[in-house]
């Protein structure tokens, strides 16, 4: 795989599912270069998770093409090994919850070519994750931190975080950001990061994608976007408000 290959390339991607043919993605075209930390913002139901699931090979697009690191990610052993998808399953996940932290770490060590055992242990300590507890018996924050740990320790060339730290308190979120940046510096990779805490995380991103109703509203370099004079959060809100709603907060 050559270095010039984009980490992500989507071409007119549509995703419809269910007997009601819900349109999750309606023509998404974008390209993310390798090595970027890319923020993905969107309201609930905008299509963020659907897009990420497609990139991770969890489903296939109804239409259009997806290329991850130059190839179709669906049922592709080489690509799957290089993509880590960190997410929280909706609803009950009794099977996952029955596993203990150390078992999940061991699984990661077995399956991920770039896994770093010492680093995983370091992260466990930083997040105060109990090794012997099963996920179902951990607090929400600990479970989220465990998922993030596995995601970081995998050192996958494309790492996707889908609101991965939902449930983590402010301190752990900060620890996570620090660890992410530090490891990113030492082991560069492409990171796609969806979050609702835009304000808190915006400085992390080199580029930002705003997605709304299954389409890409905006995709640009983060600093370029800031030259419009607004924070990314304000920009996001002003772009995705419904007709008739206004957002008039003015600072002093």
């Amino acid at each position, binding site marked *: *795989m*050559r*270095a010039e*290959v984009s980490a992500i390339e989507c071409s007119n991607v549509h995703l419809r*599912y*269910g*007997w009601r043919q819900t349109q999750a993605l309606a023509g998404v075209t974008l390209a993310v270069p*390798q090595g970027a930390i890319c923020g993905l913002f969107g309201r609930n139901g905008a299509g963020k*998770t659907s897009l*990420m*699931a497609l990139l991770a*090979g*969890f*489903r296939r697009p109804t239409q259009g093409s997806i290329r991850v*690191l130059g190839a179709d990610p669906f*049922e*592709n*052993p*080489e690509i*799957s*090994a*290089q*993509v*880590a*998808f960190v*997410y929280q*399953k*909706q609803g009950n996940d009794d*099977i*996952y919850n029955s*596993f203990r932290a150390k078992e999940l770490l061991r*699984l*990661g*060590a*077995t*399956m*991920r*070519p*770039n*896994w*770093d*055992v*010492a*680093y995983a242990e*370091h992260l466990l300590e930083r997040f105060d994750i109990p090794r012997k507890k099963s996920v179902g018996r951990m607090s929400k924050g600990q479970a989220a931190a465990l998922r993030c740990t596995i995601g970081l320790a*995998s*050192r*996958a*060339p494309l790492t996707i975080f*889908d609101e991965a730290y939902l449930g983590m308190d402010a301190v752990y979120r900060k*620890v996570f950001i*620090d*660890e992410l940046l*530090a*490891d990113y510096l*030492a*082991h*560069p*990779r*492409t990171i796609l990061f969806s979050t609702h805490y835009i304000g808190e995380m915006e400085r992390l991103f080199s580029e930002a994608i705003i997605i709304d109703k299954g389409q890409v509203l905006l995709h640009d370099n983060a600093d370029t976007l800031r030259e419009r004079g607004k924070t990314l959060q304000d920009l996001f809100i002003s772009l995705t408000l419904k007709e008739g709603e206004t957002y008039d907060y003015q600072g002093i």
Partner: protein
Amino acid sequence: MTIRESNADKTGYVPGSSQPGSLGVTAGGAGAAGNSADANAGGAGMHGAAGSTRGAMQAFRWLIKQMGLSTLFFLAIFAVVMVVINLMLTHVDVLDANALLPYSEVLPNSTAGYMLVMGIVMPLYLEILLGQGATRRQFAVGLLGASALIASALALVNVMIALVLADVTVLSVLGWALGNWFYFLVGWLIVIGYQYRHVITAILSTLIGICLLSLWPLGGTFISKSLTELAVTLFGPMPVLLATAASSATTLVLAFVVVILSRRISIKV
């Protein structure tokens, strides 16, 4: 503004090996070759077709571990239950306990039932392995192998019990192993219908599954003895060998179908 006074490394972790400039994507495939982290990973690097097999091996090993533990539990519980019931019966002095509960039938049936349940539960582990970079095919192949192994192991247990209490032929051992595996595959088929997230596929797979269970034609050691007799009535006495061949073929086809169907499962996150 005191940048100079800042602590450079807040996290306190010293990365084991820095890869200057590289993005972890090396020519020819995944994995950072020569990385000290490789020593810690079970399998470093996946290349081409070999990658697929290696992934299946890893899935296989992990699934064996998951299934093995619960199988041991099952056997232990089964043994305890059987002993207790036997003791109760002999104590009460009702009947010859062995006539009431012929081990040669109870154990194989229970084992098959257990495999059916496992066939329903194990495919649900797909999502976890998918999340760790496996493909559906690697998972399916790994699960095929793991379930075949467990099926054979349980058949051996049957043999050991049967040797004590009844007679045993090579064919009956094969029959048990195949039967166990078949029941697993049927359970798996049923679950796939649900994994497709469609009411229709769920109903279809459940019905087909039930039909398959009642059609298992290998003489007499399974639940639907009556249907076996029916088959004999309809088609004449089947040479045992032919019956075995037919059942083997059915099982293999089912295994094949299950792997193919697994490929199209969408995971809803």
